[in-house]
């Protein structure tokens, strides 16, 4: 109680008003306190300090009665059994006590409630104060920011001012320079003129001097005079001659103008033709769409009327085209212009229609997804909500667990759990690893087995081939079954063969090359003994067991190729050599890859 009191007093500073109506009046509290301490004092404290003594029972009773009345318990009035007696009538006293106890309990309840209220209030108060301080901070910050901005603005303005002044000075400078340039230019031109005059004077003087000196050297020395190029005699300089020159000049000018006018006229006529053509085509384009739009709008009908008028006008203009009449020309251009406008409107309309249609299409396209989109959104929102709830519940559970049973033991337990889990996982991984290893082992075994099998097969195949070849040799008749062999070869035999080799395998180059091939390609030189040689046979000789599927595909087409490329091998001996080298290399490589 005392503690509460102190807190209350400390709180009084903050919220006196709220407390004042929650707490009881001090007098009342004092009463309570006194009442509370009363029974205790009876037993432990001296009688003097006690409230009631043997002597003042009636006063006490009356006082208590008064108090009770003031408390509104006027119905129960404690009274002595008899006026002089010290005993009390039990029933009203007990009733009064009961009432008091009730009141006390109620007040205690109230108190508790108020306390709680107080706590809540204080917490809100704290919260409000916190937010208040935060807001204050924010305010301060924003004020600071504002001042900063003001500062920068000021600086920028200053800068602008300086720049403006700079600009002004620059402008002044430019003006000054321009005036300088102008003055210099005038000075220069003046000087130039002066110099020129001087030069002219000098020249005059010079020529005068030269003439005065009677320069003897100045002469023409011709063996005999020539005739004029046109064979005519020289004309006298007369007014007639000058006028004839003028005439001639004007004549030439005139002819030039006439020529240019002619060309312009031609151009004009051409352009007019083009215009007419355009107009006709426009009319052609515009007319078929009229029925569809006729009467649709007043505007269109107006247009139609225009067009009709136009057609007449056009005809008229065409008729008067040749007359170069101003009016006709105007009419023509006007009609073209109008029709052009119409065409443009039409095209624009078409454009807008097209764009509208497109928009519609787009909007249609959009509407459908939007619905589904919204549905989807709704669904997702629900899901999110669910998840959130789930998470919340989990959090709560966790919190509870932590609150209820978080101690070292549980922590250790949890730790153990984790390590166990880890161990489990590792074991699992180990097991996987083992399994993989086993797999690898098995594969390796398979592989070696396959290799062995392949070796065996190779051996068998070689034997087979040897026997087949033997057969072949024995009952071979050269060139008669050529086609058949080649085809059978193409299907069954396996050979390594690169493109350049195909070129080489011509009848002509065979003999020269056979030795090199045998050494490198086949392990049995006896097979390459000079037999009736066909290209097919030759190829057969160079068979080796290893082959890749890609080479099979090559093999499919060589019989045709070889015949075509025979000619080429003749022309390029260098190539042949090089390709031979290549083939050797490729063989070696294949052997490597096999083992």
């Amino acid at each position, binding site marked *: 109680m005392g503690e509460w009191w102190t807190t209350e007093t400390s709180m009084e500073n903050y919220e006196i008003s709220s407390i004042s109506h929650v707490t009881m009046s001090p007098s009342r509290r004092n009463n309570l306190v006194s009442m509370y301490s009363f029974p205790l004092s009876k037993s432990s404290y001296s009688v003097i300090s006690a409230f009631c003594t043997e002597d003042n029972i009636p006063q006490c009773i009356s006082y208590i009665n008064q108090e009770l009345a003031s408390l509104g318990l006027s119905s129960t009035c404690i009274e002595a059994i008899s006026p002089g007696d010290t005993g009390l009538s039990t029933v009203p006293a007990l009733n009064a006590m009961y009432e008091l106890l009730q009141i006390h309990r109620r007040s205690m309840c109230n108190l508790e409630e108020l306390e709680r209220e107080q706590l809540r209030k204080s917490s809100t108060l704290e919260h409000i104060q916190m937010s208040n301080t935060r807001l204050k901070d924010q305010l301060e910050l924003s004020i600071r920011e504002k001042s900063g901005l003001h500062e920068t603005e000021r600086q920028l303005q200053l800068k602008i001012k300086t720049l403006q002044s700079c600009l002004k000075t620059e402008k002044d400078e430019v003006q000054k320079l321009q005036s300088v340039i102008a003055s210099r230019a005038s000075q220069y*031109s003046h000087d130039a003129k002066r110099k020129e005059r001087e030069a002219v004077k000098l020249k005059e003087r010079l020529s005068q001097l030269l003439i005065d000196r009677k320069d003897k050297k100045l002469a023409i020395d011709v063996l005999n005079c020539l005739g004029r190029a046109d064979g005519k005699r020289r004309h006298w300089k007369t007014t007639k001659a000058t006028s004839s020159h003028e005439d001639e000049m004007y004549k030439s*000018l005139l002819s030039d103008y006439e020529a240019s006018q002619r060309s312009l006229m031609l151009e004009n006529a051409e352009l007019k033709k083009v215009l007419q053509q355009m107009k006709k085509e426009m009319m052609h384009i515009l007319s078929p769409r009229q029925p569809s739009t006729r009467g649709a709008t007043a505007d269109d009908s107006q247009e139609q009327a225009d067009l009709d008028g136009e057609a007449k006008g056009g005809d008229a203009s065409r008729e008067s085209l040749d007359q170069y009449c101003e009016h006709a020309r105007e009419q023509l251009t006007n009609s073209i212009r109008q029709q052009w406008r119409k065409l443009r409107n039409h095209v624009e309309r078409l454009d807008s229609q097209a764009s509208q249609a497109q928009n519609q299409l787009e909007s249609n396209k959009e509407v459908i997804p939007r619905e589904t989109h919204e549905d989807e959104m709704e669904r997702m929102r629900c899901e999110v909500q669910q998840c959130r709830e789930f998470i919340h519940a989990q959090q709560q559970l966790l919190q509870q667990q932590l609150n209820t049973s978080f101690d070292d033991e549980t922590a250790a337990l949890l730790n153990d759990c984790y390590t166990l889990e880890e161990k489990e996982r590792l074991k699992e991984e180990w097991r996987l690893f083992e399994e993989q290893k086993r797999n690898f082992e098995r594969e390796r075994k398979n592989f070696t087995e396959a290799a062995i099998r392949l070796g065996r097969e190779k051996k068998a195949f070689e034997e087979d081939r040897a026997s087949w070849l033997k057969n072949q040799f024995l009952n071979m008749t050269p060139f008669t079954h050529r086609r058949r062999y080649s085809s059978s070869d193409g299907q069954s035999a396996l050979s390594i063969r690169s493109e350049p080799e195909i070129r080489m395998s011509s009848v002509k180059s065979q003999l020269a090359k056979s030795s090199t091939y045998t050494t490198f390609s086949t392990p049995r030189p006896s097979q390459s003994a000079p037999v009736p040689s066909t290209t097919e046979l030759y190829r057969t000789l160079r068979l080796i067991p290893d082959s890749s599927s890609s080479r099979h595909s090559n093999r499919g087409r060589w019989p045709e190729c070889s015949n075509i490329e025979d000619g080429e091998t003749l022309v390029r001996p260098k190539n042949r050599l090089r390709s031979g080298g290549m083939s050797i290399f490729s063989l070696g490589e294949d052997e490597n890859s096999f083992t």
Partner: protein
Amino acid sequence: MNFSEVFKQTNQLCKVSPDGKYLATCVQYRLVVRDVSTLQILQLYTCLDQVSHMEWSSDSLFILCAMYNRGLVQVWSLEQPDWHCKIDEGSIGLVSSRWSPDGRHILNTTEFHLRVTVWSLCTKAVSYIKYPKACQKGIDFSRDGRYMALAERRDCKDYVCVFVCDDWHLLRHFETETQDLAGLEWSPNGCVLAVWDSCLEYKVLLYSLDGRLLSTYSAYEWSLGVKSVSWSPSSQFLAIGSYDEKVRILNHITWKKITQFEHPAIIDNTKATVYKEAEKRPGVGSDEMPLHNITMGATLFNTQSKYEICPLPVQIPVVKPDPDRASPKIGISVLAFSSDSRYLATKNDNMATAVWVWDMQKMSLEAVLEQTSAVRCFQWDPLRPRLALCAGNTKLYLWSPGGCVSVQVPTEGGFQVQSLNWHCSGDSLILLGKEQLCLCYMDTDQEDKFKGTRCRLLECSFFLSGLKHSQQTQHSS
């Protein structure tokens, strides 16, 4: 393609007569006239001093040889070898001498541009034209030879005089709106005179024959302006090359700009083909061209080159000009239309190794030839759309719409082509080295006719028609 043997020449003085029959060359103080078809010497004249300028008269009958340092002009007749004519300008000096279009008058410009002296070979008469202006191109004759325009400077103002060449009658004399006239040129039809200002100001003025100002064109102000001007043979276009590395094309009706061709350092125009000359030393890759090794024996020590088509974008090497120097090496200095006005070839001075060919029908870039060395000279075939160029090395380069080819000139002693001239028939080219010249015959149907006289030295390894295709296939592979 066949090449003749090499002849001597000096000062790059070598000209084919206008009728295409004779070839005149100057060797020191001698003038040699040969037959173009046989290259046999027809006439040999001896001048008084080393010739500094030589020119055929329009009728191919006379040859003018000017010796500027002596102030002398000698004229030789092809028909009458013993006829002679000597014009002495005396102490006043001589800087330029030329024929009038009729071939009977000689116009000599004296030193300091004091005057132009017109000497008549018919009457021995002499007349003076005063105040000629010393500029890039101060005199131009119209193509039909009827009129001569002359830039004049009087009282610090520019004037243009139009003379009738027939009797040197002054037809028109008018002031031009130029600060400092730099040049003038007649349109090929002879009715419009283009006049341009000096490079300090971008200004092109177009005058009618009667002196009316037709139009003025100025693309920009302040920076350096016009560097070169050229009419198309059809008189339809006027191409103006300027210091801003652009060519502007004016039309002949409104005299306004139709288009402008820029010369960017990085070409990413997908319509254009970029041919890059690739050099390679013979003998290194002998495997790759075994067939041609035998024929190339004479040129074993020369590098061979061929054109490769570069995938876009291509970076053209650019030399940044020194801004402190006068007349900076930047801008379009050479413009040339093909004879059919279909193509325009240009050269930008700060991209000295590249020649640009523009299609005038599509108004777009057609091809760029990027050489390994700086281009010296290029000229169109007078009949076909075929461009020949040289780059100061031992090779001759040809471009045609079908493709591009580089040909080694198969002569001993390192014949370096400095300049070239087409024969007027377009069948042969005259290649000028430092002190030599050589004729290059294009492959034509009449080749058999000349077989006896020409030494057939080289079978060209690439042919024009097949080249482009083969290069493309090479690329794709």
